[in-house]
């Protein structure tokens, strides 16, 4: 122990090429699962975790997820020593079951409970009218919050997905938390090609989780639903690659669905071409010029970068919290063929700051720590999660809102510069 008033000397930074990766960027991974689970009508989650974790996750869930009371097993030293993890979790499940309209009790098991052990067979599968579904999302094993969305959705579908009975061969399941208008627009375009219906997941309806087991194809709009996608594969439901993003992406995606569902090829081509033309017209009407770093932690960054590049922006660097996966490869290849120099998975703050140093961007779409660093330098910057992930994006109908917003941000350079000078230069007044 030291009571020395002066801190010791520390050696300075060593000359190394790559930044030291110290601050990984993701919301607490478990948040992704809670966001999905609390938004389902009739779902009353029970959490198994320590009090600090519970406080933080409840806080962000009440900010971003739902106005929903959240129950938990008390797991302190006393309970852990006495081996009461299961007992207290079961007690919380019983209280949750008494909530009005309770149909689903997701049991969200986090770091401490997972380390102590929470055997699934010790929990009820059903209580009253409610299904009890265990969702294991320890932060130490999941690494990013988008991937926890996948874990939660897969857990729900494994229990609830109904695969018996006839397939609705001409229907499509859309996977991904997107702006609410996007699935409606996608549904409208798909119906023009002969699709008879879509189901958007994760959503608010338990019935959707049940009937999605009989769709004709599944289309992950975001590239991190790997466990969910493999579940669909195990149900012999084919998977549509890519996403309806921008002109070329939308065209390819619509064509792929046409092929998978064996729709009328002439009609599909006609609809896909019309959509491509509308998208191209929009891209031509509001071209972007400027250099943008796309560095959120939502797992959808690569698709956003793709749209921005199609619209004329230069995107030298993209980073995300999720790990590399076959689902991310097509967009990564597409970007790299069009000038993107780096696509970083499981990124850290240090990776992003190094890119800020290297590329001198005109606009940064980032995490809150990174966006604040860019703003300190007078560069326009936004928290990707709050501003991008919450706007229409897909197909020609969605892209206009996103592109218009980016264009507006690129024109706001002066106020960022003034703030930077005022707050960081002592002489500025």
């Amino acid at each position, binding site marked *: 122990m030291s009571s020395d008033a002066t801190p*010791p000397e520390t050696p300075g930074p060593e000359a190394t090429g790559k930044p030291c990766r110290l601050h990984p960027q*993701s919301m607490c991974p478990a948040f992704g699962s809670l966001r999905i689970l609390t938004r389902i009508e009739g779902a009353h989650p029970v959490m198994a975790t*320590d*009090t600090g*974790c519970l406080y933080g996750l409840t806080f962000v869930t009440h900010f971003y997820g739902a106005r929903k009371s959240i129950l938990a097993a008390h797991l302190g030293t006393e309970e*852990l020593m006495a081996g009461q993890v299961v007992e207290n979790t079961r007690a*919380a499940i019983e209280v949750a079951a008494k909530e009005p309209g309770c149909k689903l009790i997701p049991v969200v098991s986090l770091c*401490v409970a997972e380390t102590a052990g929470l055997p699934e067979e010790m929990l009820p599968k059903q209580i009253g009218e409610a299904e009890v579904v265990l969702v294991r999302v320890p932060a130490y*094993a999941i690494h990013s919050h988008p991937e926890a969305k996948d874990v939660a959705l897969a857990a729900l579908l494994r229990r609830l997905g109904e695969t018996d009975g006839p397939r609705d061969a001409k229907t499509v399941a859309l996977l991904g938390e997107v702006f609410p208008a996007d699935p409606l627009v996608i549904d409208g375009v798909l119906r023009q090609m002969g699709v008879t219906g879509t189901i958007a997941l994760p959503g608010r309806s338990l019935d959707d989780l049940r009937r999605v087991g009989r769709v004709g194809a599944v289309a992950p709009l975001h590239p991190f639903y790997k466990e969910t996608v493999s579940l669909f594969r195990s149900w012999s439901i084919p998977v549509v690659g890519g996403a309806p993003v921008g002109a070329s992406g939308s065209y390819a995606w619509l064509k792929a669905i046409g092929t998978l569902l064996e729709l009328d090829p002439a009609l599909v081509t006609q609809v896909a071409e019309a959509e491509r033309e509308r998208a191209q017209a929009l891209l031509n009407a509001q071209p972007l010029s400027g250099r943008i770093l796309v560095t959120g932690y939502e797992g959808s960054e690569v698709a956003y970068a793709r749209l921005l590049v199609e619209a004329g922006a230069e995107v030298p660097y993209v980073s995300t919290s999720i790990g590399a996966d076959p689902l991310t490869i097509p967009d990564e290849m597409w970007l790299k063929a069009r000038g993107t120099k780096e696509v970083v998975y499981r990124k850290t703050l240090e990776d992003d700051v190094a890119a800020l140093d290297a590329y001198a961007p005109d606009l940064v779409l980032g995490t809150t720590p990174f966006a604040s660093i860019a703003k300190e330098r007078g560069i326009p910057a936004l928290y990707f999660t709050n501003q991008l992930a919450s706007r229409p994006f897909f197909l020609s109908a969605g892209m206009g809102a996103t592109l218009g917003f980016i264009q507006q941000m690129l024109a706001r350079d002066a106020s960022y510069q003034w703030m930077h000078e005022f707050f960081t230069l002592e002489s500025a007044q």
Partner: protein
Amino acid sequence: MSRIIRDIPDTSSYWAAVWAICPMPDVHVICDAPIGCFNLVATAVPDYTDAVPHIENITPSVITEAEVGGSGTAEAVKRTYEGLRDEGLLAGKHLIVISTAESEMIGSDLSDLVTRLQPGTTFYHSESLTEDEWAGRDRVLQWLWDNYGAAAASDVEVEPGLVNIIGPTYGCFNSTSDLHEVRRLIEGAGGRVNVIFPMQTRLSDIAQLAKAQINVVLYKEFGHTLADSLGQPWLHAPMGMRQTNAFVRQLGEWLGTSEQAAAFIKHEKATTLQAVWDLWRGPQSDWFPTTTIGFVATRTYVEGLTAYLGEELGMPITLSVARPRRPDDLDNDALRKQLHDRPPTFVFGSINEKIYLAEGGARMTNFIPASFPGPIVRRSVGTPFMGYRGTVYIVQEIVNRLYEALFTFLPLDTAYQKAPAGFGPPAANGQKTTGPAPGNLPWQAEAKAMLDDALEKMPFLARISASRELQMKVEGAAQQRGLKEVTAELAAEILAAPSK
């Protein structure tokens, strides 16, 4: 007995440690944490409690499956330390390693490891599986004094006239304003502020705490252990006029500045507090005896608001729950039920109470943020709850919200809600708006009793307007269905429908 938690109001002592240590700029913290415990405490939550973009002087060891699976966290912490050192982030910094619930869960004790890191590095075992944030803050402040202040303090002489303020840390509701006001009171009483610990202190300056003649502890929840250790007279920060008078007088007495303190109180009465006197003499205070209030907040706030709004202004308190909760306080299940069934007109609380009010459709109740959890910006110095300015701010807030409630229930011609877009608000989704019924329909006695019961649950102030509105709503429905009188069944159905 199994224990469960509904909507946890207090976080853990790990958070307390980070939020008490990181405000000091000459510290760097390594939290022995998985990514989530780092993100929530350092970015996701302080974004919305303290309005800071992120806490910069903290780095996680990033516990993964390997560490949990048996390798322990020592290597990860060492690797993190080396990275920080190599990046130059430890230059001029004291290094403190803090345990988390998960590192404690896997039994990671790093008190030996820290002796092999940068000289002077310490390990703080946060007891995160046992203690809440309040006990945690109290203990970590004492630990900081023991390890970084006490020894050097033996050379420090007490300087008459100096006063320390102990608290706030990050995550203390409304601390910017309360601190500002308490500082103003100390100076008004004739004191000079020495150290504001930990929020405006450097770790290297902790020994300076010994210089003060008096300590003011901002909160009842923590800081008292340290105040006792410092050995000088101390007192809690005040709320309400009577406590504030006593606070200023006591300071004046201890400081030998009683005359200045008395002059300050006199001047405050003629300036700041005139607003309270004017509102008391005006029509506003007439509402107080019939306007019910409830508090769910720290004990500091609950006791302070009880003294001011309850005893000094005479408002009826129908709900009072303090944090940290004592065994005889309502638990959140009982609290939730009360807010569903019979909410007071004003609820001072956290987002949990706000959610319960929303669940219960309590649109007549005014929610006033007074506690974490819940996102809020409180960085202005103009919203104190403490001291003289606090009395003005709180009463002003209450009266303005009463005005707002009155406005909300004044009649508005329903025609505006039917007008096409571009003129007035659109009609509520899917709901046919009904104008006033031509003449009253007869009500069955049972139906009338239900209406009375519904009104009884409403705050007094809104009852006149609300009674007309509910009556119109039920009668409108009766007419739509061609009923000749309001039946008990219809009243039950319409009154049970959630309000917009």
